[in-house]
């Protein structure tokens, strides 16, 4: 994971609530054993028709969608399955952050592990971003500053957003959480010594 660098980016609006992970990346694209190419299947069932041609009405098929790096989406984004393919697909398309009034738990966890920021915004800010975009779709920008936990809106106003301190540290510094867990090895060994394993999976086959 790369270190986080503050950025200003254009955004696309997906004004739909409860966007589930089956929409973000349908299950039939999960038969892969790596992360490559998932961006092409992001929102596949909304983005392409039954023959695989781009659906001209879908936001990511508009000319302005090329190069957008922020997605503004309706309430409870990322509900449904635990597939990490969802943030991989968003990242594969080029998204660095998703702005919504609410995120599903597992999606939020998965996104942070990949440096895709799930940024919780108040409803009035969501409405403002949607309205601002409607004036000239895909042109308005937001700036994201993780160090200060702030986003700057198209009108120049800055607002703060919450993030867990540890996730923030990891994304800012481009370090992943496995390293931290591995550094607790002595504690884990001590825990295991003090307590017999609960089950043994060997020999059932």
């Amino acid at each position: 994971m790369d270190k986080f660098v503050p950025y200003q980016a254009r955004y696309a609006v997906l004004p739909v609530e409860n966007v589930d992970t089956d929409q973000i990346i349908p299950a039939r694209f999960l038969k892969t054993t790596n992360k490559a190419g998932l961006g092409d299947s992001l929102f596949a069932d909304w983005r392409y028709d039954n023959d695989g041609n781009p659906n001209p009405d879908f936001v990511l098929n508009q000319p302005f969608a090329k190069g957008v790096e922020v997605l503004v989406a309706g309430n409870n984004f990322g509900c449904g399955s635990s597939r990490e393919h969802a943030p991989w697909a968003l990242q594969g398309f080029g998204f660095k952050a998703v702005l919504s009034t609410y995120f599903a738990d597992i999606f939020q966890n998965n996104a942070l592990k990949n440096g895709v920021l799930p940024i919780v915004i108040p409803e009035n800010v969501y409405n403002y971003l949607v309205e601002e975009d409607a004036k000239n779709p895909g042109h308005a920008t937001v700036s994201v500053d993780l160090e200060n936990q702030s986003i700057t809106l198209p009108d120049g106003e800055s607002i703060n957003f919450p993030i867990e301190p540890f996730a923030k540290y990891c994304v800012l510094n481009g370090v992943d959480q496995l390293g931290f867990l591995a550094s607790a090895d002595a504690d884990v060994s001590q825990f295991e010594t003090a307590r017999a394993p609960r089950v043994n999976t060997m020999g059932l086959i």
Partner: protein
Amino acid sequence: MSSAPQTLFEKIWNRHMVRPETPLTPAILYIDLHLVHEVTSPQAFSELRQRGLNVRRPEQTIATMDHSTPTTPRDANGIIPVQDVQAQAQLTQLETNCRDFGIPLFALGTENQGIVHVIGPEQGLTQPGMTIVCGDSHTSTHGAFGALAFGIGTSEVGHVLATQCLLQSKPKTMEIRVNGRLTPGVSAKDIILAIIAKIGVGGGTGYVVEYTGEAIRALSMEERMTICNMSIEGGARAGLIAPDDVTFNYIKGRPRAPQGADWDAAVADWSTLKTDPGAKYDAVVELDANTLVPMITYGTNPGMGMAITATVPTVSDMHDDQSKAGLEKALKYMDLQQGQSLLGKKVDVVFIGSCTNSRISDLRLAAEVFKNRKVADGVRVMVVPGSQQVKKQAEQEGLADIFRQAGAEWREAGCSMCIAMNGDQLSPGQYAVSTSNRNFEGRQGKGGRTFLASPLTAAASAIKGVVSDPREILS
């Protein structure tokens, strides 16, 4: 040890604390059992290889094949053929990963293979007071035994493989108390669909739910699994039910259940796993089972559910603009009208299976309806057992014959049409009554339309060829 009253969740959480939470870092939580399947694990194993890491506790890890596997009949050699090249590659990769890292694997078609949330309890691996994770959101199923069980992403699968631990912030707790008793024709699936309709698909986000109350106590172990399975559809990563004699009787004698003196000690310990009087939950929700009727979903998320006797809500029933737009979008996809009844709506497919409703008791319920009856003309019915063990038992009990004689397909074990990544899927525009857990757009096949319901409702709809109230058939 603190003497303050604790919830069941807090007891399990505290028992697994390797390092407590600090203002700057999450807690390090020890994981007792890690379940692995082919879809969410390959990239985690790649990560381990890149870093030169081993699996810390292969003997606390078990793998199965379920999501991308076909459920079509075996060939002359008893092999389940995999036609899909990409799925085959994924299954082969899991075999390689399990061999290289020493993890036991229930490979496709072998004696104990099945859906990951069916095999854990079946083998007695799922036990009260444990922490259980899997790269699958329906891991909440195992909470029915009073285990803290939740779904994780692939990065976290890598964390658990390498360290047997997870970084976790302490969630909040919610009690969902289900009072009263179910009436005939109403089942566990209807309870959980009613709960999700009440709290919404995001209502449980950030919480671990504990299901309590008379109606929950009265449920069998497999019914409790149906309830906990769909906790995630209400946004809660984990659902819990305090273990009791129902739990102990279900575990006793299973391959990995404690034996002899160990059994007695285990039951004594498990009996302490309940919420203390006076312990506080962060939120409480109540539901009355007495007045509950069979439930069905009309929309494109599991929160869009209603009594089967009710009518689809109207936009004017919705409180805010996003919900109004959400309902309109859902009804457009489902090609349904506001205010219409679903009873009598023609169905094309009935799917009985998935980690929600594919256990032997689910199949017995369905068979009760199918017995001496025929599937309506023009309806395709798929009955997919949750595991090879369930399949064997259903065949021994004569259930498979009942399904076949009724005109239903009796298939090999797997996730099947719940996830539509294995060849089992709806065609665009088709309507299905499904015992699975998700009615998202395209979940059961691009353009397919799903009505979620209980096995009884699904079977009754199969017989009538239209969405039907099972109480009419059973009476």
